[in-house]
């Protein structure tokens, strides 16, 4: 994956040929490349119709006051036309600077940032720790590996319900805590514990992917590097620091980026853990936007779409900074 990332970022704006007039160039290009273009047409069409068009449409919606009461809809045999009107950038103004901006947007924004940072950190460190353990020569390694990827093998929407039963007020987790005379928090009711539970469940779900990817990375490090380091008198920690970590760089930069994107966009866990309507303070931006658009009456399509556009902008800005940072540190795989 990183290979392509590299080439995709290397020279922005490159690839546009220079030379003779545009018409001739077009003709020449057509003769030379038509195979390639014929082959990519299916995906380009799919992206245009299924991503591009809704994106434009969604952006237009954010400039209106559309909700479920004034959108086009069909009730029985009657078709009602859309009556929403253009209101410019008011939605964005309201979301970012309006009187309820903090309660509705910024508090969720901060929580989303904390959530993403915390989850990716835990995924990465626990995943790396387990990968290092699995990379040792221990008996039953295959068995452990199979056990540890169980959270990945079982669909998330199933395991989240399992957690929900375990975290219920008198659920097994609290029974165990009670038996040990430890406090029994209201996992699914207090804001702090809701957030704690969400991070915990997401960590549980996300570690296997990191572990498996990093294990692959560990196994591709040349063993002679370790031998050389040992010959030079490096102790275990130094070998880890100067051989393992640099050897994992290209895998790490990929999985951390994927992890950030996936966690930032993580919908199912929070949505299913707290049900459709409860826990407004534990919602991250994605689930909050979904709540605005589909979880309340009347459904506020315009604001929900505006949140979507803001989310996409945040991710785009983050990704471009991430690439720039990687490039400066020369961490992209070549």
């Amino acid at each position, binding site marked *: 994956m990183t290979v392509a990332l590299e080439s995709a970022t290397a020279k922005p704006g490159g690839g546009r040929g220079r030379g003779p007039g545009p018409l001739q160039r077009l003709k020449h290009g057509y003769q030379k490349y038509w195979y390639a273009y014929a082959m990519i047409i299916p995906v380009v069409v*799919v992206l245009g119709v299924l991503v591009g068009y809704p994106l434009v449409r969604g952006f237009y919606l954010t400039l209106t006051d559309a909700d479920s009461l004034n959108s086009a809809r069909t009730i029985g045999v009657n078709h009602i036309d859309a009556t929403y009107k253009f209101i410019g950038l008011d939605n964005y103004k309201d979301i970012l600077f309006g009187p309820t901006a903090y309660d509705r947007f910024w508090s969720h924004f901060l929580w989303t940032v904390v959530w993403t940072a915390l989850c990716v950190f835990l995924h990465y460190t626990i995943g790396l720790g387990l990968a290092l*353990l699995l990379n*040792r020569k221990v008996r039953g390694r295959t068995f452990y590996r199979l056990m540890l990827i169980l959270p990945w093998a079982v*669909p998330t929407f199933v395991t989240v*319900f399992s957690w929900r039963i375990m975290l219920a007020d008198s659920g097994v987790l609290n029974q165990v805590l009670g038996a040990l005379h430890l406090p029994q928090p209201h996992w699914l009711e207090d804001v702090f514990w809701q957030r704690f539970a969400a991070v915990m469940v997401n960590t*549980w779900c996300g570690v296997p992917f990191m572990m498996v990817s990093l294990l*692959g990375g560990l196994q591709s490090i040349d063993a002679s590097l370790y031998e050389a380091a040992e010959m030079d008198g490096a102790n275990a920690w130094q070998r880890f620091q100067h051989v393992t970590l640099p050897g994992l760089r290209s895998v790490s930069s990929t999985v951390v980026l994927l992890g950030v*994107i996936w966690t930032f966009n993580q919908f199912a866990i929070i949505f299913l853990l707290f049900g459709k309507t409860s826990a407004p303070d534990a919602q991250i931006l994605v689930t909050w936007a979904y709540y605005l658009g589909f979880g309340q009456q009347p459904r506020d399509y315009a604001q929900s779409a505006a949140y979507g556009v803001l989310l996409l902008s945040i991710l785009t800005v983050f990704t471009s900074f991430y690439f720039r940072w990687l490039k400066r540190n020369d961490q992209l795989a070549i």
Partner: protein
Amino acid sequence: MSTTTLDTAASPAASATAAGAPRRRVRRRGEGGPLARTVTHGLLVLASLIAAAPVAWLIYLSLGPDKTDYLHPGAIAEKMTFSNYTFVLQHTNFFKWLQSTMIVALGTALVGVAFAATTGYAVSRMRFPGYRSLMWMLLLTQAFPIAVLVVPMYEIFSELGLIDTYGALILVNCSTAVPYCAWLMKGYFDTIPVEIDEAGRVDGLSPFGTFLRLILPLARPGLAVAGFYSFITAFGEVAFASVFMLDDEKYTFAVGLQSFVSEHDAQWNYMAATAVLIAVPVAAFFYLVQKNLVTGLTAGGTKG
């Protein structure tokens, strides 16, 4: 590959503890002392237990006949029964949900692979103006938050009268499955030697002929991985399925499972039984193909 040789040199904590233990015999590389071994096993057992506990608990609860049994798990041991399973199979829409889920997931996988295969090949073998922007687009669509597409998609499909149809859900899933399949398949095509293409071209095949007759048959494992990944993603998709499917006979599993737990009534026992019925075949299938899946996903990253 070289797992056996480097194995453990890389574990700092455990090796550090090993250094403290007395060395009785010369150890081979990657073998820890008894203390290190115990610590490693201890940590791995603990992690495995944490990984397995929620799933095991679900299986255990599914055997308790009452919906409040999760509050008194001890009592289940005495009255274990499969009654939840028979109820779910006979008196709920389980098989209807199974049908919907299979239609949507298989449809997504087929469309995803069929549409993405040629593109994966083109971006693996050819360079053309617009290559970089295409790669960017394929990557960027992976980062799309569902929130940015769900509202306009809902609007568009309501206008077309396609809400509550399988086709709509397949199309929605394809918006991420198709570019992702193209990515995965590019990675797989990259591993097939270019010499094969060249041989085909020398023998007079067109690029399409080369692709269809030579590369595609070789790339079957790659296609399978891409298809499987699309299948799993569509299978577990929650957000779109929850708003697009209205008729409870057309629910996919991800929506149907939620319907056991409403604000008014929570039938945890039936939910648990259904969850187990869903999870067991999926997990079994996952384990069968996981090796390929893992290499497919990380190929680009590890190859470097």
